[in-house]
């Protein structure tokens, strides 16, 4: 697991049914490009977030594929319609096999 990785998500706590809400996500991550060398001249292997997904009550909201040349601390902002109360699950997959997840609940009333 890469060091200093911390997912952060901002979701409104409440909404009305059918509301379009704005979700902001940011994961602090080095996004090691694979182009750099360490002090001994050895190549540092690529380690970036390669996919990011968001699900709401098991239904996919967004699915993002990331490739090289995306800078550190990738930030995504998107909108979602909420029909009912439930949980947003956010998942980031790292090249090194690590999976980072975060869950946020929203109450619709």
């Amino acid at each position, binding site marked *: 697991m890469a060091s200093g990785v911390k997912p952060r998500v901002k979701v409104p706590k409440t909404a009305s049914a059918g509301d379009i809400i704005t979700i*902001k996500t940011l994961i602090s991550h080095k996004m090691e490009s694979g182009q750099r060398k360490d002090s001994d001249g050895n190549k540092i292997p690529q380690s970036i977030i390669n996919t990011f997904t968001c699900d709401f009550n098991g239904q996919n909201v967004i699915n993002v594929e990331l490739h090289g040349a995306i800078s550190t601390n990738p930030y995504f902002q998107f909108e979602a319609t909420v029909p009912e109360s439930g949980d947003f699950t956010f998942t980031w997959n790292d090249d090194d096999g690590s999976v980072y997840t975060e869950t946020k609940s929203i109450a619709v009333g």
Partner: protein
Amino acid sequence: MIGSNLLRVASIATIATLAFGTTTANAQSLVINDEETMIIQAPAAAHLENLDEVFSGWNFRTVETQALQMDDFDNPGMIFVDQAMDQWNTVEGDAGESCASCHEGGTAEFAGLRPVLPRWDEEVGGIQSMEDYINKCRTERMQADAWKWSESKMTAMTALIGLESRGMPVNVVIDGPASEAWELGKEIYYTRVGQLDMSCANCHEDNYDTMIRADHLSQGQINGFPSYRLKNAKLNSIHNRFSGCMKNIRATPFKEGSDEFHALELYVASRGNGLSVEGASVRN
């Protein structure tokens, strides 16, 4: 005095309501998280002979950059503040202590510290910046290694401590024992140096709010430091920024943490007396 250039930097909220050519700098406001209002424009202090008003660097940035600072979630500098919170509780050094071991009240103990730094320290017999105090804690109380002046852990920690004072007006003391350093700082500010033969004042006093090629010149205020800069994607210390400016005019920079930069930091901070501490600001 502030001309139409500032039109470009009107905040998103107010841009639609501005009539061309009638704007003044106070037509915009910096409100963070919709609740904390920053003072971004203030009457110049009495010791500032050549300016009537002082402006935070936030005024001179583009709408997009300004917006980043208006919400802590969008502010990339806050990532480093998060890291500093972890560092705060990390035990390091031979004494087996972390910051939290002594400072039981948490970082809240430091509310009100950022606006008065740098300041004269009787014990040391010189001007001390926040970096000096952090390293003093590290070497004497924790018996850990000192951090370099501008390394990421140091800038993150200064941001965390400074954040406790966000919104408070800068108010450094320039008289008494600090006056000698302040005079030295003032002399450095107005002395032309380097191959381009320029002083700080040439850009930041005589020509602020104009374009120097692609850059919109600010007054060079340091109330927003440490600053997250989009150009290098990290927090930048005050002395590091001084050093960068000196390189730009092709001068040999003073060393970070030197007496000269301490003096300059005190002088430049005093030019911004009255502006809010902006914690981790966002600049280009």
